[in-house]
């Protein structure tokens, strides 16, 4: 089952911000249907990462309502947040790979967190690595991989728990066009099996190569 998203008049100001400075999100409203593939575009500081932080309940909106599958994630209790996150697949801009662990350990972490038995977890982690073309590198340390391979480890980690919503924040940043295409093909493959995919990027060339609906942000506002 895929997830639908609804932002209704959402604003977010971070505490300690300069008085009068622009909000990270300013009365943003948009909807994403279940199973849709959507680009979130805008320059750095436009509010793309804040959208993801609100969807994953890392932050709560200052105003407005954020719904994931009709569930108001801004009002979730702290105890309920982990169970929301287990339905999400996160590919973070700063990757957050654990360099003192193997590729396999990194990919199987969400399964351990969810209490999947070790034997099943091993099968699923290998299957996820197979999907991203890294089967055979599970014992490697992420530091020994190229930038593109590290990004694929992040994608394997994001999808290993069979998420209903895949959120990728600049997954092709710092990759050349060829690698960026490979990564995007992976996201399209997950979308093809029904997963809702929201991909933040400011790479117009990439969007032109793989067209889909875009939600454009500028200074925290939805401009298109």
């Amino acid at each position: 089952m895929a997830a639908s998203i609804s932002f209704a008049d959402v604003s977010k100001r971070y505490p300690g911000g300069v008085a009068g400075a622009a909000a990270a999100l300013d009365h943003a409203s948009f909807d994403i249907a279940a199973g849709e593939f959507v680009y979130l575009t805008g320059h750095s500081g436009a509010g793309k990462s804040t959208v993801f932080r609100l969807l994953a309940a890392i932050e709560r909106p200052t105003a407005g309502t954020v719904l994931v599958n009709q569930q108001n994630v801004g009002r979730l209790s702290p105890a309920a947040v982990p169970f929301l996150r287990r339905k999400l697949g996160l590919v973070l801009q700063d990757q957050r790979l654990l360099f003192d662990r193997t590729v396999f350990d990194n990919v199987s972490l969400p399964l351990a967190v969810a209490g999947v038995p070790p034997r099943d977890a091993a099968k699923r982690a290998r299957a996820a690595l197979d999907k991203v073309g890294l089967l055979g590198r599970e014992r490697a340390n992420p530091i020994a991989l190229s930038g593109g391979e590290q990004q694929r480890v992040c994608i394997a980690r994001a999808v290993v728990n069979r998420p209903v919503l895949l959120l990728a924040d600049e997954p092709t940043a710092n990759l050349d066009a060829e690698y960026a295409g490979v990564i995007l093909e992976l996201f399209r493959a997950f979308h093809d099996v029904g997963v809702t995919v929201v991909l933040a990027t400011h790479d117009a060339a990439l969007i032109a190569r793989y067209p889909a609906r875009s939600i454009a942000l500028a200074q925290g506002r939805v401009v298109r």
Partner: protein
Amino acid sequence: MNAWLHAHDGAMRDALAHARRAPFATLFAVAVLALALALPLVGFVVVAGLARITAQFDTDPQMSVFLPLEATPRDRQALERSLRARPGIKRLRVVTKEQALAELQSTEGVRDLLSGLPGNPLPDTLVITPAHAAREAVHALRAELEQLPGVASVQVDTAWVERLEGILGTVRAVVLAVAAMLGVAVVAVTFNTVRLQVLTRAAELDVAALFGATRAWMRRPFLYFGAFQGIAAGLLSIALAAGFVALLARSLPGETAVAALPGRGLAMPWELALTALLAAAGLGWLGAWLSVWEHLGPGRRAHR
């Protein structure tokens, strides 16, 4: 149920894996904790040994019931019969005034003194061992006996037993106080060890939280680590204390050493060893719990 078991199994493996990843730090912490635990353990064993040694002595309190000087043998026999029929008396021995005098005369230097006296100044005495050695029971019996007709006075000889018990009680209290202080030290050391672990694993905990780790999931390996570290320290402290006590017993004279050691010549009573092990595990767990509450508790913004 399976998921719960897997979660705990995973947390235990994680705790052991962390100990393996930093073997020297773990061993050093265990050694420090073991030394802290061994000291009161030795104290408890020594106190228990002293109690066993003193138990070998005839510590039953005795009472001397003195008859009036003018009492006749018939009076003495009547009182003896009366006392033997009473409950609360374990043993009764008669020391006649003639036996008392003869005993006194056998004492060097006293004979000449007694020869100057016109007659026997000593009374007939009934020496009683009460059935109940408790202080209150002994004093109650004394009060009852003093009221009996034909009794001049009653003397209780329990002072030295009470003094010995007092000394043992003081030593026991000191050992308990030292144990309490070192228990706090064990909690503090574990708190700090776990704090460092949480800091070392901050990145991992952040990532785990992003992928749906609950606070319980994050806390669990640290709690197991604290308990496991406590168990390891407890086992080592038992071995250290047993070794030390065995060496100590070897320096005592043979019979005293046998009396000081518990059954079958073991240097450590198993009940005490088991208590020490459980206490060590509990203190380790408590130190870890306080640490994760401080560093991974609900008030913390990190690891959301």
